[in-house]
């Protein structure tokens, strides 16, 4: 396809600028996002199995709820029944409410024992997956604006640039699209391999990236969009007015859990209830939010659809679940969310999104490498922008990986100490991140990458090694994975470890072969190598 030369040039410049300014933020967002696809498994892996209380038969949930409400009247304000067998059957907050990343929340977990007695324990809420989610949504940028995380707005701006980068990338590839898509040239210039790889990744995953760019824009700026929309609506209401409930509610009138489940499952055929969150049970505003799962639907939430229902009258206030009377707009809105969350297609869908998230991180990293290679001059004298971007590329991407790996590696060990583990996660992440970033500037990208990747591989291997140790020496309070999902977390960590180790070897080989002036260049002699690595300009 022919495209005018000036159009090509314009969009090539756009692609370069929008790409280089957002790639590192997006790298963190995508890598953390890939991991968040397995948030429930990661949380289950992160806490000792004894914190989860044994599951009970479905017909015993009534008895369980009755006993909880009788012995802990406060639970009537907010209590959740979990039908997912890997979670404690009932839980409610002693402190906190489960919104956002709060570090000091404490929850009651409860179950029934064989004699039908209520057994409970207080468990501090573990925020490992919530912290990964924070990194996913903010790229780790700290600070709040008007009770919203500042990083979310920054990634919202990045999403605008990212969309332009996608459009411009496609436009300037159009003339040679068919030819390039099939080529992954390893011969010739090294740059070509990165260029072909970048193009291949970008074109192959384009629909995914378009979806992510649009949804991130909405997630960051929906308040602004609703504000503008309200101007367009004029006097018309934007949403139906909530119905005021005035009837006093008493727990003795509360219908059975099984009736509520049956009602919800009849409303949304094909779905199963995964949890029921009762709220304000003794007040007129009594409500229940029910999580329902159907892997064959595009679900509105990351893990489930939602049905909001009155637990006394079973009147449905709103529902995102696919049901016979669902209108097209509800279907479309759920689809938008679902395409971001990957909450369709069950396990296969989650693995696909995990891989696409990692591939996205690779796409952004390769873009930076291309930027650097294009700007490299002959010889050892390089521009300041080249050196800074080289250090940032290695420092930020490796720093984020190191931070996440360090959190996983230290997790079980931290539980042996008396520190608040959620505070420790943040400390470990940011300390690792800034150490690597600093190292990239002080020791240069090449040496930071070679040694950093080795350390990163070690941290990844510590994850399964810790379990091995726990199996060999049962006296420690460490634990081994008790479920297939928790085992998979450690297997994946091991695979990451092997990959990073090989990568380190590869970088080391290249460092000695490369031309002077490349960010990867290292002189063989250690005594003199400092000169070429430090910033001489």
């Amino acid at each position, binding site marked *: 396809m022919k495209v*005018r*030369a*000036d*159009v090509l040039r*314009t*969009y090539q*410049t*756009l692609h370069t600028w929008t790409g280089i300014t957002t790639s590192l933020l997006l790298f963190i967002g995508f890598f953390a996002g890939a991991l968040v696809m397995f948030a429930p498994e990661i949380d289950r892996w992160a806490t000792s199995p004894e914190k989860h209380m044994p599951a009970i038969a479905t017909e015993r949930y009534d008895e369980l709820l009755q006993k909880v409400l009788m012995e802990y009247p406060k639970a009537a304000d907010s209590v959740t029944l979990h039908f997912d067998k890997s979670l404690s059957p009932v839980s409610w907050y002693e402190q906190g409410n489960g919104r956002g990343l709060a570090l000091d929340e404490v929850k009651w977990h409860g179950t029934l024992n064989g004699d039908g007695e209520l057994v409970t324990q207080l468990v501090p809420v573990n925020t490992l997956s919530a912290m990964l989610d924070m990194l996913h949504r903010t790229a780790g940028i700290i600070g709040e604006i008007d009770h919203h995380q500042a990083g979310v707005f920054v990634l919202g701006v990045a999403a*605008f640039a990212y*969309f*332009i980068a996608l*459009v*411009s990338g496609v436009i300037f590839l159009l003339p040679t699209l068919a030819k390039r898509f099939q080529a992954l040239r390893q011969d010739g210039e090294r740059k070509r391999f990165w260029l072909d790889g970048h193009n291949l990744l970008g074109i192959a995953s384009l629909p995914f990236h378009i979806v992510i*760019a*649009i*949804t991130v*824009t*909405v997630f960051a*700026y*929906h308040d602004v*969009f*609703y504000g*503008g*929309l309200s*101007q*367009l*609506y004029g006097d*018309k*209401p*934007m*949403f*139906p007015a909530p119905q005021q409930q005035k009837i006093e509610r008493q727990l003795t009138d509360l219908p059975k859990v099984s009736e509520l489940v049956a009602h919800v499952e009849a409303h949304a055929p094909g779905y199963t209830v995964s949890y029921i969150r009762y709220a304000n049970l003794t007040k007129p505003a009594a409500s229940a939010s029910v999580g329902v799962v159907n892997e064959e639907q595009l679900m509105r939430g990351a893990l489930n659809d939602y049905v909001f229902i009155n637990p006394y009258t079973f009147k449905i206030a*709103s529902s995102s679940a696919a049901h016979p*009377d669902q*209108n097209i*707009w*509800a279907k*479309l*809105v759920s689809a*938008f969310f679902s395409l971001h969350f990957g909450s369709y297609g069950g396990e296969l869908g989650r693995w696909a999104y995990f891989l696409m998230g990692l591939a996205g991180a690779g796409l952004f990293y390769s873009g930076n490498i291309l930027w650097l290679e294009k700007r490299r001059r002959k010889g050892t004298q390089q521009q300041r922008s080249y050196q800074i971007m080289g250090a940032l590329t290695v420092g930020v991407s490796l720093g984020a990986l190191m931070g996440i790996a360090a959190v996983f590696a230290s997790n079980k060990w931290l539980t042996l100490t008396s520190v608040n583990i959620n505070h420790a996660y943040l400390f470990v992440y940011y300390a690792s991140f800034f150490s690597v970033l600093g190292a990239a500037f002080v020791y240069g990208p090449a040496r930071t990458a070679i040694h950093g990747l080795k350390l990163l591989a070690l941290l990844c291997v510590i994850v399964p090694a810790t379990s091995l140790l726990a199996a060999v020496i049962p006296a420690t309070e460490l634990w081994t994975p008790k479920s297939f999902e928790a085992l998979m977390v450690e297997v994946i960590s091991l695979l990451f470890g092997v990959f990073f180790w090989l990568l380190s070897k590869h970088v080391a080989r290249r460092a000695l072969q490369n031309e002077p002036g490349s960010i990867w260049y290292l002189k063989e002699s250690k005594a003199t190598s400092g000169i070429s690595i430090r910033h001489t300009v």
Partner: protein
Amino acid sequence: MNSETRIQPHWLSKSLAGILAGGLLSFAFVGLVVWFGPDGLKGTLTSSELLWKTQFNMWLIAPVWLLILSMTFLFKTGKQAWGCLLLATAVCFALQAGLRSVL
């Protein structure tokens, strides 16, 4: 190609045009969908339709804005970008006002 027909860079003014005037245009365009598109405000909506249609309308703003922004750089000059986008915005708003009073 001579320099009069070629695209001028004008990065700053085109970027601002795409963000500001493009933003206005996307709201103006979505305004037409809000009022006169399927299940628009001119008709009667059930509360469930209103609940989800409003969310859909909000979602629509993002892709429209992003598309306009990324195409803004095809304008020959920054001035032209501002002119065209603002004119299109005015047309959309005028159309909305006109149709709302007529229908």
